[in-house]
């Protein structure tokens, strides 16, 4: 893959539908690989971005498919950065408790794992509000 292609393809814009999650993962995996990084780690980065977009679709856009999600990747010398922006509902990530899986199972419900998993898989997870825009920054340190 040529350098131009990488630059041209450093941003993906999708509608807020779970239909598009596979495209998101492929975009991230391709960007990751194009920089020559290890395939297996790329799968974890793609999974984190999948979780981030799933949450935006479900919680920020309330499962309505007409919202816009922008995903931008940036490769710095010591880190791989993904910026994900949306214009849906705001939320305060500090209000979200750690998942209690046995308790949820007792209540016969799933869920509550996405943010926890992102934090496990990435080195940095930062949520920000910029006016009407929500920005989520995921960072993987390279070594």
């Amino acid at each position: 893959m040529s350098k131009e292609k990488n630059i041209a393809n450093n941003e993906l814009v999708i509608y807020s539908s779970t239909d598009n999650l596979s495209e998101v993962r492929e975009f991230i995996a391709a960007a990751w690989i194009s920089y020559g990084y290890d395939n297996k780690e790329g799968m974890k980065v793609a999974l984190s971005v999948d979780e981030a977009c799933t949450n935006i679709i479900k919680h920020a856009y309330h499962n309505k498919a007409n919202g816009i999600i922008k995903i931008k990747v940036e490769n710095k010398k010591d880190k791989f950065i993904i910026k994900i922006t949306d214009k849906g509902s705001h939320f305060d990530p500090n209000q979200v408790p750690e998942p209690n899986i046995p308790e949820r199972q007792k209540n016969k419900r799933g869920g509550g794992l996405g943010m926890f998993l992102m934090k496990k898989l990435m080195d940095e997870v930062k949520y920000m509000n910029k006016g009407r825009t929500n920005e989520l920054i995921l960072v993987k340190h390279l070594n």
Partner: protein
Amino acid sequence: MADFNVSSREQGQICIIDVKGYLDAHTAPDLENEFNKLIDNQQYKVVVNFDELNYISSAGLGVFMAYVETMREHKGDIKFSSLKDDVYNIFDLLGFPVLYEFYDNDEEAIFKFNQ
């Protein structure tokens, strides 16, 4: 669209669910359907075979969380077999190995049910 396929087969008293491809928030409802069918048919002993599953996100794990208690209340369980390392790693990160049984192949899982 993510490529995912779920089907089930009976092995004596036990039902084996084969999951293939990519299990994410888009395809998880399909797996939910399969569990709903099992409960409708009062089949509570389930082995999920992950041999051909390439990918799982937390939405997929959530399906097992939502159904395992019903299975256990009826003297059954959901046991997992044949996971690829990458997929097992996700279950492991979230602490599932203390909550579920994982086996290398269906036979071992079935053997456990029949013990």
